[in-house]
């Protein structure tokens, strides 16, 4: 920190002598934190090791044999879980800190190995037969249990992803448009139900104070899923798209209230952008049905410029409102 600046502040009387002394002492003995660097190295190491091992196993499957591999995975997985059970701090419905740095990673490794194990025995021995649902359902239960029992946000995200896979879709927002064929009605409806469910769980989590810090993860997943599904419904079911637009409006209204309550700029931005997409779709559709020639194009340009200006004013106003709230 800038010593001369605080010296000036001290002389102007904005800073007590004690505070100024603290700052000067700190500047002499400033510590250099390597937290970010070391955590990144650790994370990269885990990523490379697990990735490399799984490919290695895959390539040498003829020589190692399935039982040996399964045994190895099971033993490592069990070992990791035993470590976690031994080291963990007592369970609480509030947030529990992890006992040491390695803990989170060991738990992650245990859960990933467990998923691999279940997938492996299904793939190789067809243990669950045609009941594919079970293959995701069992890891999902384990993941949810671990997320709550050991208090791990990353595992919770994995569990929710697994829940969605179980429900027949994947929810990574990056992947959602690539991986899924949104022309299927059932997928859209499933997405909406799942999204609504997740949002509800988020609310219950908050109200019941059961791992309150999990609420954001639920709500975030639910929000993206709800918006993407309803917008997809709007684009797909063309004859009743206005009806779906009303649904988008209602969802946006709900998250507007949530954003105000939680003072969350993030929710505000997300809902604004999704809502804007929906509104633009409706406006352009009507515009080009009414004026299908070049005039429509001009009007569309004016519409985009005008609407963006309006939205900018809205965001600026909301920024003030959330700040002062």
């Amino acid at each position, binding site marked *: 920190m800038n010593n001369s600046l605080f010296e000036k502040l001290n002389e102007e009387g*904005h800073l007590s002598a004690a505070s100024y002394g603290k700052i000067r002492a700190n500047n002499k003995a400033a510590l250099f934190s390597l937290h970010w660097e*070391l*955590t990144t190295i650790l994370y990269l190491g885990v990523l490379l090791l697990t*990735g490399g091992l799984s490919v290695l196993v895959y390539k040498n499957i003829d020589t190692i044999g399935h039982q040996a591999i399964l045994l190895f995975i099971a033993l490592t997985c069990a070992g990791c879980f035993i470590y976690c059970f031994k080291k963990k701090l007592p369970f609480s419905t509030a947030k529990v800190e992890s006992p040491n740095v390695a803990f989170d990673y060991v738990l992650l490794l245990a859960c990933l190995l467990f998923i691999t194990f279940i997938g*492996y025995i299904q793939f190789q021995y067809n243990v669950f037969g045609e009941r594919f649902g079970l293959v995701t359902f069992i890891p999902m239960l384990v993941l949810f249990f671990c997320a709550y029992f050991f208090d791990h946000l990353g595992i919770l*995200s994995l569990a929710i992803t697994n829940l969605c896979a179980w429900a027949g879709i994947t929810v990574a927002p990056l992947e959602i448009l690539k991986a899924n064929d949104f022309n299927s009605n059932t997928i859209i409806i499933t997405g909406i139900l799942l999204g609504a469910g997740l949002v509800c769980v988020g609310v219950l989590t908050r109200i019941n104070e059961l791992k309150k810090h999990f609420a954001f993860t639920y709500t975030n997943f639910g929000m993206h899923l709800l918006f993407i599904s309803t917008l997809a419904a709007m684009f797909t079911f063309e004859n009743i798209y206005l009806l779906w637009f009303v649904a988008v409006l209602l969802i946006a209204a709900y998250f507007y209230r949530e954003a105000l309550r939680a003072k969350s*700029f*993030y929710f505000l*931005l997300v809902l604004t952008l999704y809502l804007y997409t929906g509104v633009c779709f409706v406006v352009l559709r009507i515009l080009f049905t009414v004026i299908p020639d070049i005039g429509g194009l001009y009007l569309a340009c004016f519409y985009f410029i005008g609407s963006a200006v309006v939205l900018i004013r809205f965001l600026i106003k909301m920024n003030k409102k959330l700040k002062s709230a």
Partner: protein
Amino acid sequence: MIAYNHSSLENLLTRKETEKAYRKGYISEAEKENIYQAYPVSFYTPNIFVRIGLFILTVVIGLFTLGLLGLLFMNQVEDVIGGLTVFFGLLNYAALEFMVKRNHYKSGVDDALTWISGISIVGGLNILTNLSWQTNSIIIFIVSVFLCARFINIAMAGVAGISVIAFIFLSFVRLGEMAKALAPFVVMITSAMLYLFAAMKMKDQNWKHYGNGLVILSIVALISFYAGGNYFVIREISIALFGLRLQNGENIPFAWLFWLLTFLIPVLYIVRGIQIKDVVFLRTGLALTAATILTVRYYYDLLPLETAAVIIGTILITVAYVLIKYLHEPKHGFTYKIEEGPNFDEKLQVESLIIAQTFTQQPKPDDGFQFGGGSGGGAGASGEY
């Protein structure tokens, strides 16, 4: 030179330092409030998410204004599009000056207008006439230096650094065969000078508002210094740009020297970073170590990929684990603890999303997730509160 209100900029610096001291718990809330009262800032700078929103919306406005201009000249659009784009860039610049006068500072609006005006002016000139790479780099340099100087845009500082190195490289290699052979060293010398320039100005009180821009500039300089001596870069550029033809088993001149530099520079960066406790050196060195490993792997199949991954992964975990244990109590001025507390929750949220994203995106050839339309993707909203 700076377009923003000067006293507000000054006061903002004071506020930032105060905020830092407050977060570390050295000064009380009352003192902080007191200082904030005494150092008013008239800027409009919204929350980061609002800023992202304003940025996107400003780009939308810009694009459709350009579309509207194009529509107006629809019949002869091919003749006028170049001039139109330059005009559009100037229009954006005027808008930028106007918004800055209205105290927009890092609001998303001024960021977007800076980028749009820079890109449209350079792009428009390119449509108007056929510009060489060399001319382009000097134009980009002038535009980015101006925008950086006037609007303290940190990314523009990086663009300026890249374009000046490109300009010197492109001008130098025109001098003949000898120059081509010496080009790597010219790039390295230019980068070194650029770094020294940034390091010198960082200490200069007159340049204090450009602090972050200078950090970006020094990162660019460090990376291009490495690239100038990197075996892969030199070999591939010699083949692609200078038409070098290598027979089987033949190598580029002075290969040993460039291999040496490829290995040595990241190590030197890391050592230097630890020596002077400099984050820029340290992190750049760590990232470039990965680049060196990739360079080696590109030419030599020493080990199969998966074996290499297992070995490197094990080494990384061990190193990290040992260091974390070692730094449990601060030693030699280093600590494993996070410097400041408050943002911890946010970081945790982001971290969890990254985990879900990367771990589930891995190819898992040995388990059979082939059902229900799901490919086992991960979670990845880019968000926190």
